């Protein structure tokens, strides 16, 4: 952590970057922090409690501007950054990644390929919470699953914290805000909530890298991250992807291959 602070301070001091997006101590646990001067770098922290997906900020023009910036990125953030590269949302030359492995070794990554190679060392595994809930859901009948999600989703009040916390929900106008035609009823009600969540899931297929930010953000505790996570887990092997490791050639559902094993696509 000390090495990371020193490096961040140096980068800010010599003007290599004008901003380091990182973590600082929060009121309960670490929180996102925008470090703009080398003096502030001593506030930076980077440890296993840093769970926020900082990739959500890197597409916000009003925050990052045009100058080069650095991000202190945990693995989940790196996965999202890769996906953002795939979707052409980032410029390699504007962003520098600082990260540290569990042993505290500092890494500086500057391109899709470097990040990709680094992330490949880490297998995407279910955590305890994910395992527990997904295991329960996987054991349900179709009807039980529908009831489970209907009950969960009827708690949703459409605060869109899930959307706001997701690095891949970068659209300035979301499908829920389109009103000609109105695809989704914008108020919270059981059925209208299902419309929102089904749409959200559909927009995430093949894109979600299972960072869990949406589920973590939901104030009413809906484990919505598990829907897109499960989709990714199911879909990746079918399409020959490594779960959580976005590939240059594009998303499962928006790319096309000559050697596809399905006939209809050719």
């Amino acid at each position, binding site marked *: 952590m000390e090495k990371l602070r020193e490096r961040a301070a140096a980068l800010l001091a010599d003007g290599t970057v004008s901003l380091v997006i990182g973590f600082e101590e929060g009121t309960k646990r670490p929180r996102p922090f925008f470090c703009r001067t080398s003096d502030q770098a001593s506030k930076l922290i980077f440890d296993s409690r840093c769970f926020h997906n900082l990739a959500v900020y890197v597409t916000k023009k009003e925050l990052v501007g045009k100058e080069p910036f650095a991000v202190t990125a945990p693995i989940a953030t790196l996965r999202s950054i890769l996906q953002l590269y795939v979707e052409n949302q980032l410029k390699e030359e504007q962003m520098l990644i600082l990260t540290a492995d569990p042993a505290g070794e500092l890494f500086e990554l500057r391109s899709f390929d470097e990040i990709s190679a680094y992330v490949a060392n880490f297998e995407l595994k279910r955590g305890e919470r994910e395992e527990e809930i997904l295991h329960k859901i996987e054991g349900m009948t179709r009807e039980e699953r529908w009831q489970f999600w209907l009950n969960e989703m009827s708690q949703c009040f459409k605060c869109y914290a899930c959307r706001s916390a997701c690095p891949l929900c970068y659209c300035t106008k979301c499908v829920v805000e389109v009103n000609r035609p109105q695809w989704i009823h914008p108020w919270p009600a059981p059925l209208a909530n299902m419309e929102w969540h089904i749409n959200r899931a559909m927009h995430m297929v093949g894109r979600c890298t299972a960072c869990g930010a949406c589920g973590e953000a939901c104030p*009413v505790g809906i484990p919505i991250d598990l829907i897109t996570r499960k989709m990714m887990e199911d879909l990746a092997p079918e399409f020959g992807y490594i779960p959580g490791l976005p590939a240059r050639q594009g998303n499962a559902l928006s790319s096309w291959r000559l050697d596809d094993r399905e006939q209809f696509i050719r």
Partner: protein
Amino acid sequence: METKYISKEGLGRWFDAIVASEKRIYAPVKSRGQVDFKQVKSLSEVADEYIQTTQSIKAAVFPKAEILFSYEKVNGKVNLTDFDPNSVPETVLWKVHPCDAAGFRPLSAIFNWDSADKLHNAHLSRTTIVSYGCAIADESCFCTSVNGGPGNLNGSDLQLTMLPDGGAIAEIITARGETLASLCPDAFVADRGDDKSAHLVDLPARFSLEEVQSKLNKAFDSSVWKQQSERCLGCGACAFVCPTCACFDIQEDVHGSKGRRIRCWDACGFSLFTLHTSGHNPREHQSQRWRQRILHKFSYMPERLNVVGCTGCGRCSRACPVDMNILEHITSIAEQ
């Protein structure tokens, strides 16, 4: 106002009497790992040992989505069906915290400062609020800094302060409270002289409201907004859990020739909230929206509606995905 004592057994009988009166009762219930207001039928369903419900009770008087009126188009004509106040059942809100009860005043001020809001008032006039004095608090609570307190009676019809014997000090505050108590009159016996404050959490004030307000009066162009809001994601979580946020949207629910006009929660933190049709957006940046949130609550509402738009419940701080802690932010403004 009258102070009485109610025993544990009396409390149970009174609750059953309320249930028997066919009033709808909402109380905090533990489910899915959270505590929130749900309809209950027995006292045993009511949650214990929690700091705060995730959401406030405002939905009882300002539903998340409510039908303003409905209509039907027949042969080029339109028939309207107005909202019917009598469709709103008599409701008891049970075990409301004082900071939630206090939220009813700012909420009603917004809905009624100019013209009367028939829908909000229909709910309000059929609602009786039984609050519980708070015996526990956490580091997000700051009611005592915003004119409230763990035993504050503002907004409550009847307040209970739990005693070690399972009974409670019952303060009957309003006529509605009295009517509710009269459902089981013999459960309420003479005050034993218990010291209420001894059974409430001690929560020293964290900032001076006057100081904050005088700082905010000059703070519109301050750099503090950008500084504080950089990590803010612009969601609606803080506004939706807040007992006093009243912003809403009006939407249309159409089914063929029939339709309903619906009012649903909205929030000044959303980027599209103020977007003009022309594409011009007066609050384009999150810092401007964060400023609106703080100034609306701590400056505009006190000036315009004569009531502070925050009761110190701390819900927004607990709900925020990125730890935008309102107490920390307000304290830092006070200290500037």
